[in-house]
């Protein structure tokens, strides 16, 4: 004991420097994480809470909407992640041959929507998707196609939100992939050129395999962020029509802050945590040391 105390005393500056950050981290992050697990086993009420065991979990697992929200989230991730990645890979490949300044210019253009709040982006798209007066139906009408109630239809609402996310997103993926591409040694390309390989073949044979760690990282991070989608749903559809766009975070929000049922909402949050945790494990397992950026 004395030995440890002596070490702590010796390192007092380190602890002192760490303390301010740790107070906030502990109080407003670590403690809430632990508390949320407790809450998921409680019936929390202002006038007194009680332990209810697995009741909250039983309730959410028998809730059809909870399963729909999971399905929507998987569908959303399956739509957004590959499209984001495809967009980022194509654009990175297209800007690669250019001068640094031109590359930076295009990176900035594609990154621009990222600094705009998701609320604003969603409001703009609500306007674009507006059935009678929106831009999209107008463009369709130029081709003689009838208008569609994009967000009012169970078949198109979620794809519309996915499309919106894909068009506006992917900017940081472009930056990351470009950085990784610039890190590929040029002699590999020179060798390929000497062999007479076409640009496309070079890209598939050399670039893509070497981008594997970056791509894997983007897939995992993209999937995790897909499971946290909320703002678009809140602003554009409130989870409708007929729950077609209800996501898990939206459902947590609704249960907790509109119906004030903190117990079941916490149980959902714990399930979300578990899902994200699985993806994180995949990332650590497959990528190991390679995520050092």
């Amino acid at each position, binding site marked *: 004991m004395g030995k440890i105390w002596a070490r702590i005393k010796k390192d007092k500056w380190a602890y002192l420097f760490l303390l301010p950050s740790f107070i906030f981290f502990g109080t407003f992050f670590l403690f809430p994480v632990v508390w949320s697990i407790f809450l998921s086993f409680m019936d929390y009420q*202002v*006038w007194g809470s009680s332990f209810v065991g697995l009741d909250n979990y039983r309730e959410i697992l*028998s809730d059809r909407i909870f399963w729909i929200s999971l399905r929507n989230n998987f569908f959303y991730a399956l739509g957004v992640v590959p499209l984001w990645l495809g967009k980022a890979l194509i654009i990175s490949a297209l800007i690669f041959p250019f001068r640094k300044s031109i590359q930076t210019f295009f990176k900035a253009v594609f990154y621009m929507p990222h600094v705009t709040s998701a609320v604003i982006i969603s409001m703009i798209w609500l306007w674009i998707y507006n059935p009678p007066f929106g831009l999209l139906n107008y463009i369709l009408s130029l081709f003689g196609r009838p208008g569609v*109630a994009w967000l009012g239809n169970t078949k198109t609402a979620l794809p519309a939100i996915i499309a919106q996310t894909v068009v506006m997103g992917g900017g940081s993926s472009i930056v990351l992939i470009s950085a990784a591409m610039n890190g590929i040694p040029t002699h590999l390309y020179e060798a390929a050129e000497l062999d007479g390989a076409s640009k496309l073949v070079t890209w598939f044979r050399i670039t893509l395999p070497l981008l594997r760690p970056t791509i894997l990282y983007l897939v995992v991070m993209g999937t995790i962020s897909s499971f946290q989608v909320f703002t678009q749903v809140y602003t554009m559809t409130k989870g*409708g029509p*007929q*729950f077609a766009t209800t996501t898990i975070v939206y459902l947590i929000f609704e249960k907790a802050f509109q*119906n004030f049922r903190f117990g079941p909402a916490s149980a959902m949050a714990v399930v979300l945590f578990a899902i994200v945790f699985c993806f994180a494990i995949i990332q650590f397992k497959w990528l190991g040391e390679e995520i050092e950026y």
Partner: protein
Amino acid sequence: MKRRSLASVLLVFLVLAVLVPQASAAKKITITWWLNPWRIEPPDLPEGQAVTAEDYPQWVKREFEKLYPNVEIKYEVVTNAGYQQKIAAAILAGNPPDVLRDYAFKKEWAVHGLLEPIDDYVTPEDIADWYPDAYGKGYINGKHYLFPWSYGTNGMGSTMLLNPKIFAARGVELPALPYRSWTLDEFLAAAKKLSWDDDGDGINDHYALSLGAQDGENNPVWLYMRGASMFNEDETKIIIDSPEGIAGLQFMVDMIYEHQVAPMGAEGMGIYDIINLFHSQKTAIGYGGPYEIGRIYRYVNEGRLEEPFEVKIAQFPHLPEVGPIAYHSSGGFMVFRQKDAEKKKMVMEFCNFLTNPENTRLLKSLLYITARDSINQDLYADSIFADDVSIYANAIQNGKQYYGSLDVDFSEARKFWQAAFEAAFTRDKTPAEALTEFAREANRVLFKK
């Protein structure tokens, strides 16, 4: 030297500033009061000045503080959108206001002792004057918790608004006074004449009325109209999936597709779309009571509507075997748990001030009906809307609470209710399927069945 004297002066000043208000605060009573926006015109509002939601509470504050100089009223106008969230947060944090407009009243608050019973603070005269259901709204476990104030709502789900100009232009007579009541057949015949195609493309451009899946206030009418009910007698089960309910929803779907008297796209519409269509005179029939007539004038004042247009109130259509149907509710003020006896007396006094006959009359400027029978007798006698008000007042007298009494908290089932209408309006599901599924989900979340 100079600096030190300055510092000591400052110090004395500071000490005084801290001590003096506290000394007088010992006698001072501060009452916090929350209400949602009510654009009531106070008696002393200068002629021609537009009314804001601040005018009424400000007037109340002034007048009450004049009566009781040791009292300070701190009011807050809370927007409708965040009202429930705000009060829930305040209760959680243990600092609800002293007096609350009961916009989001939950029975549990009284059951768990968060509210003060008011039985000892109301007079027999008041009780005799208030409508029994208005005073009874706050009756929980043998005690009363609500000072009644307004009776009915904006009239959504209770009465319809008719545009006489369109009726005349299409050669349709308004339903006859005194109640402007009509049967469902009469209504449908009129609705067909009120919907027409301008440009000959086979699709109507003008409609009798519009429906919206998100319009939770008017949708239940069409089902209740046929004798359906949301709950069974003792409110332990959802039974809206009855044949009557299904027939009602089928009629709504038919109004869109079969009779084409309401525009398509109802699955994506809410109450404001419906109001807009009526205001832009694309539909001949809108919804609401006298308050909604007031909305037209308010929008004109705010520049959101070009010019006012004439509107008449009528009952919803009815089946002769069921009789007229309307939505009914009432509102008032309640008091949260008080620790200090002296303050409690003053808080109750404040509620009595808000709801005394004279001040209740102020609701007239919103074309609202009051919770006091004696006032309603003559309040609108001199008004050009007298007929309309009396039709509305008559309709809500025997109104129903579509979503049940305080004993059930319908809020968790609301999204399923909306989804049922979305599914029916898109014809993804038949009315029977939509309502059966709603009943199943609602019974699960409300009654754990």
